[in-house]
């Protein structure tokens, strides 16, 4: 029942929050808090599967669910400050909560078609939020997002049907239920399974934003409100990665490890290369963050494709990515709120964020180091684990290429962000105090990012290790 509550609570919250004006944020925060508490209880008492095994929670699902829930709670507290400053539509909190409900469904689905329904739901729930400003640029962004994501996700549906065809008509097997797919993996028809993997990888890869399927990402992240961008870069990507991880899990169980690994590695390296090419010389900070997101989802699938300890690195990176992306988007959002959008679009007219919004500026500076994988932040560990897996797996050129591309991205991100942070305070725009609501969330995420880099709590480490083992990898 607890599993159903995790979907129903945000769904009811979404219905209740509709049209409440500024009181929307109250609904948003309280629903997010209840959701977070429910998720916390799952860590102590593993729940039984419900609905004939359609909804269940395995280690990987719990990782994604926890990541989304924590990130959502932080974003919800931030939204309290945001709603006080910006005019938002009637459905602002409702759409956010609908996203939470759908993301929870994705994390808990052990029926792959139900997973698809949730995945499409997350896509649709965020679309109206991208369109918040209702001007030409956001219109263009939401259109590209909708068309590309919808087509991608349609191909994933075709892949899901292929998978059900691969299963055949064995009466003892529940169709498309993950446990049965894995335990009876040897009976899957290999041709259909391969076709299913390709379509699901391309489909959910579009949603994840892997290069060359990433073209919607810079536009969407660039135009969406910062808190929505953070939720997309941290939460939506985790859900999409889960989709790819599920089909990889099935394919590995069926003995197709050799078939699935090369495409994952190629997508990963290509994403890193595209990110490196577009990060250097980028003039809009939100687009910069979008390309940084392309980099990090590339690392996720790269680790998955490398196998072994790389899978552990990948799952750890999922956690780090959510924390750091939330931090960066919210800190950038504060700069935009106080200084105006000029700061984020052109460094020549901008700059001076550290003077204008000192607290958020420091948070942004810390986020800069976190996102580029500097110690002592958590991303250093996960990136290091993935590179080490490439080296240990006998692929020194993969390790070398990854390191070189990461270095280029480090320079690109650093150069742009430092240009934005330092310099004289901008004269334009009303000077405003940074409200506690707006800085508490990102500050908490900084603490999280450092904690993950210094010592991963042992329950989390065990959970990550179990998730990695289920995906055919190993713990370090």
């Amino acid at each position, binding site marked *: 029942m607890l599993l159903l509550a995790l979907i129903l609570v945000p769904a009811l919250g979404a219905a209740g929050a509709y049209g409440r004006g500024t009181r929307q944020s109250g609904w948003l925060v309280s629903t997010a808090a209840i959701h977070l508490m429910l998720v916390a209880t799952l860590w102590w008492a593993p729940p039984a599967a419900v609905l004939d095994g359609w909804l269940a929670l395995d280690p990987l699902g719990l990782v994604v669910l926890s990541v989304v829930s924590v990130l959502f709670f932080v974003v919800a507290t931030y939204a309290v400050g945001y709603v006080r400053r910006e005019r938002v539509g009637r459905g602002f909190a409702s759409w956010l909560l609908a996203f939470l409900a759908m993301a929870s469904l994705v994390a808990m689905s052990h029926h792959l078609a139900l997973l698809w329904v949730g995945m499409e739901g997350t896509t649709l729930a965020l679309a109206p939020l991208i369109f918040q400003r209702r001007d030409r640029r956001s*219109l263009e962004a939401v259109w590209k997002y909708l068309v590309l994501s919808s087509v991608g996700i349609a191909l994933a549906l075709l892949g899901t049907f292929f998978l059900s065809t691969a299963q055949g008509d064995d009466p003892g097997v529940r169709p498309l239920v993950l446990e049965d797919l894995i335990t009876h993996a040897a009976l899957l028809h290999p041709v259909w399974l391969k076709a299913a993997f390709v379509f699901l990888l391309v489909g959910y890869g579009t949603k994840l934003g892997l290069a060359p399927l990433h073209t919607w990402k810079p536009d969407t992240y660039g135009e969406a409100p910062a808190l929505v961008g953070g939720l997309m870069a941290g939460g939506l990507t985790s859900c999409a990665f889960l989709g790819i991880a599920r089909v990889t899990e099935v394919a590995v169980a069926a003995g197709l490890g050799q078939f699935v690994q090369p495409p994952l590695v190629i997508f990963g390296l290509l994403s890193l290369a595209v990110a490196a090419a577009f990060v250097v010389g980028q003039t809009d900070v939100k687009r910069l963050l979008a390309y940084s997101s392309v980099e990090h989802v590339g690392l996720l699938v790269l680790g998955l494709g490398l196998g072994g300890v790389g899978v552990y690195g990948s799952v750890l990176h999922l956690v780090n990515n959510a924390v750091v992306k939330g931090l960066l988007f919210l800190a950038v959002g504060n700069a935009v709120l106080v200084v105006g959008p000029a700061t984020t679009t052109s460094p020549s007219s901008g700059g001076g964020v550290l003077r204008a919004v000192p607290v958020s500026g420091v948070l942004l500076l810390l986020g800069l180091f976190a996102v580029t994988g500097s110690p002592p932040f958590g991303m250093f560990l996960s990136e290091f684990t993935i590179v080490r897996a490439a080296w240990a797996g006998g692929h020194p050129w993969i390790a070398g290429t990854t390191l070189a591309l990461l270095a280029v991205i480090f320079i690109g991100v650093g150069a742009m962000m430092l240009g934005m942070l330092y310099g004289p305070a901008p004269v334009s725009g009303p000077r405003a105090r940074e409200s506690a609501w707006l800085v508490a969330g990102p500050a908490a995420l900084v603490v999280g990012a450092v904690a993950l880099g210094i010592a991963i709590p042992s329950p989390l480490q065990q959970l990550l290790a179990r998730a990695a083992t289920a995906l055919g990898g190993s713990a370090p």
Partner: protein
Amino acid sequence: MERLADLLLLLVLLFGFLILGTTRLTTCIRAVAVQGGLLGLLPLVLHPQWSVHTLGLAAGTILVKAIVLPAFLIWAIRESAVRREVEPRVGYVASLVLGIFAVAVAGAVATRLPVPGEHPVLLVTTSLACVIMGLQVLATRAKALLQVVGYLMLENGIYVFGLTSLDRVPFLVEIGVLLDVFVGVFIMGIVVFHINREFDSLDSARLTELRD
């Protein structure tokens, strides 16, 4: 019953060609509506022992794909007083030739694939051909509204493939899929409406402000 199913599938393909070849927007929407209606009849013909499952699926599909969504899209055209021509990037004849090529490829793939059970190869051929034609419309037609039509064609093709495993995919999931398509097209329709108001055109090729 087998003959009837084949006839329906052939009609689905023909209406796909109509979308590729017509010059008028409303014809495209009507054609995709007819396609939706034919798809709604297919489960009834393929599974003659009608159950609640097949009846519900047929009713839901016809309601959403043949009635509500097309009516909504036609409303969007009328309200936004858009020019009624298709204005393609790739000419009509070339589009039709590409469509024939799509059917040939789909047929070749379908005969090679180990199609399960008693289902005719034509089902898989139609499905894959529809998917390719839908992608073709998405790629070669600049108007935002036609991209919605292309997306619907793509979904129709996937739906046909879903019929090969109707017994395996549960009712709840199918309704979920239908609901997602419905909401998706609905949101797209609203965006199309706004695009027209902002840009005085439904041409997504004018959406070029965002670039690196």
